[in-house]
């Protein structure tokens, strides 16, 4: 795969992308704050939601067993997959056994993570994404770039072209018409599908319920019309009970799109019951590990509380500049910078935690208050330990720790550096720096160190002043109006 920094350069050159990102993140961000402001006790609700999520991680194994037991009681078949390949294999097996040939899918990050579609097609099972954005992504042969808005990076003109070329409909760029075309096309697919595949927004432990939220209603069709329904969900996507689910629902829609609640929230507790006219006849849940148990054992366990609302993406100035594809995997933005190295291992992904100014905007908006900056720092530390390079070497500063803990050495070094730097910058500013530091002068001049350090000025002042006498305070320009 291409290198992170190359993907970044490509993204930064894309003016169309930049415009789309600016509009979308701004809109979602302001809607989010407005709708949270209208929720009474929103701070407390977020704290309670965090408590629920963190609490269940403490005995995730026990909770999984209870969840499994309740699913089974509800007539659901439960499967376990150590990794993506295994999950996909289980799904293909289920489909084959049930004689399914045509699958419809609603938006699911877990199956993006396992690259399910590829393995299904390989096994001769047709699969169609049904979320409008995901459908277009599938037609275009690309990947989603935002958790909530998969095609945030595409203009309506490009979408029109894709529809025109791939499903041979007359070209239009009218969003309403495009959506209508999709409705008709996808409705045919729904009616003929025999397998519905979804993720899960939540699994309610004590009732054995799968919760799905969607605005379009496609998740409902996927779970209502086909004969067989398979859920692929990460082992962390649990909530203890319905009262906690209430908390999650209150913050999820608000954080994601600024809606008080997403249009459809489905609670699916087992397959169709006796006397019911619709719903699947056979329901399966595949519980996916794929690196999650490893995350749980390390310093970034907290990320397992993520409810995938996407708010951290919209708040992130880095995401706003580079969009989702630059992150190189299923999960973009700040959450992706933690989850991707967590799931896939730090090797090959250490650029992601580095690509943050640690501004903390993500932590501020996260509905469950995940401390993303802390986790980025943990991953950076981990990357250093793995790679075994001394900081000094990387930074081109000889023995930083040694030097900076020895004041005289440190000062001498800094002063020498200053003298050298001022040689480069007769007017006090450096236009071009060599090596790694050249990144700075790509768009900024660098101020050279001052001829006299603060400590020099301080000592000179002390020397010029008789000992023991405090400096006379000059009279203020006017009387202070308010001194508490």
């Amino acid at each position, binding site marked *: 795969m291409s290198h992170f920094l190359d993907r970044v350069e490509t993204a930064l050159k894309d003016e169309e992308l930049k415009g789309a990102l600016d*509009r979308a993140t701004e809109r979602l961000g302001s809607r989010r704050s407005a709708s949270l402001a209208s929720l009474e006790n929103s701070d*407390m609700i977020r*704290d309670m939601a965090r*408590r629920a999520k*963190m609490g269940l*991680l*403490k005995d*995730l*194994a026990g909770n*999984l067993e209870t969840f499994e037991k309740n699913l089974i*009681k509800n007539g*659901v*078949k*439960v*499967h*376990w*997959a150590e990794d993506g390949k*295994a999950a996909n294999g289980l799904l293909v097996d289920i489909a084959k056994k049930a004689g399914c040939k045509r699958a419809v899918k609603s938006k699911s990050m877990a199956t993006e993570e396992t690259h399910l579609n590829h393995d299904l097609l390989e096994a001769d099972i047709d699969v169609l994404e049904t979320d*409008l*954005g995901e459908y*277009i992504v599938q037609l275009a042969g690309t990947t989603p770039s935002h958790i909530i808005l998969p*095609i945030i990076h595409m*203009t309506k003109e490009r*979408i029109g072209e894709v529809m025109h070329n791939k499903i041979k409909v007359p070209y239009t760029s009218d*969003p309403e018409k495009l*959506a209508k075309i999709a409705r008709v096309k996808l*409705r045919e697919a729904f*009616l003929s599908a025999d397998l519905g595949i979804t993720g899960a927004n939540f699994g309610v432990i004590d*009732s054995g319920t799968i919760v799905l939220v969607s*605005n*379009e*209603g496609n998740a*409902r*069709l996927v779970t209502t019309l086909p004969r067989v329904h398979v859920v692929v969900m990460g082992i962390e996507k649990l909530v203890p009970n*319905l*009262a906690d*689910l*209430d908390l999650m629902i209150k913050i999820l829609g608000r954080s994601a799109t600024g809606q*008080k*609640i997403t*249009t*459809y*929230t*489905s*609670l699916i*507790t087992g397959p169709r*019951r006796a006397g*019911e*006219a*619709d*719903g699947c006849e056979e329901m399966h849940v595949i*519980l996916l*590990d794929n690196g999650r*148990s*490893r995350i749980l*054992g*390390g310093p970034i*366990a*907290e990320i397992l509380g993520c409810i995938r609302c996407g708010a951290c993406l919209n708040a992130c100035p880095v995401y706003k500049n580079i969009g989702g594809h630059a992150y190189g995997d299923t999960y973009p933005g700040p959450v992706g910078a933690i989850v991707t190295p967590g799931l896939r291992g730090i090797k090959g992904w250490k650029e992601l935690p580095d690509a943050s100014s640690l501004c903390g905007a993500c932590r501020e908006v996260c509905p469950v208050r995940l*401390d993303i900056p802390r986790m980025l720092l943990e991953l950076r530390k981990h990357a250093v330990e793995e790679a075994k390079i001394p900081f000094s070497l990387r930074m081109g500063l000889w023995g930083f720790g040694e030097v900076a803990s020895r004041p005289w050495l440190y000062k001498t070094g800094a002063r020498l550096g200053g003298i050298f730097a001022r040689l480069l910058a007769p007017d006090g500013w450096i236009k071009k720096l060599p090596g790694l530091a050249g990144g700075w002068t790509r768009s900024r001049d660098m101020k050279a160190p001052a001829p006299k350090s603060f400590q020099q000025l301080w000592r000179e002042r002390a020397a010029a002043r008789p000992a023991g006498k405090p400096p006379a305070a000059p009279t203020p320009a006017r009387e202070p109006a308010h001194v508490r």
Partner: protein
Amino acid sequence: MSGEASSSTSRDARLTILARVRQAQIRAHIPETKAGLPERLAYPPTTPAARRARLLEEFKILGVEAYVEESEEAVRLRVRSLVTGKTILSWDADRLPYGIGEAVRGEKIYYGHDSKEDQGQAEIGLTGCQNALAETGTLAMTSGQGRPRSASLMPITHVVVIREADILQGMGEFFDGFRKSPELPYLVFITGPSRTADIELSLTLGVHGPGYLIVVIGP
């Protein structure tokens, strides 16, 4: 056997994963969370009139067409006027409140037991509803015998009839009703018409589910 891990690989995976998770959670660094929070969220009491007013307010924001009728007869007339001449996908007559099933007799109606293709022809879905949730403008629908899920999902228009007495304040209150019996039916919370903003953030209604949601509130 129903309800068991399906294959031997999955059974092995189960043991491996649970063992790993168990190992991991011993040394897991789970951050402390804020102390002194209430056990559960309290819903302060409200009056039926306040709940109805709030519900109507939320409906307006969501673009839900709402009618409040004072008598059972008025409800039947309203529903008739909304569905006459259209192909209907309906809950069974005995599952609809206010004798609406009788009132729409004579129209072209499909039911849950008809083929999906036939159901797909319907222009209007006609259903009752277990509860409405005022603070979000939400309809809480359960499904079961004679109450198919498709009626609130497949047609482009969905007409829902609810009783004013069934308006609750919010989801928490609704869930409280299931506290004693954790046996949940299939449930869907519907809040406004189906929508998407996937294409350049422009709002489009009715992309998969109903694009028009009409609620008739009866006495």
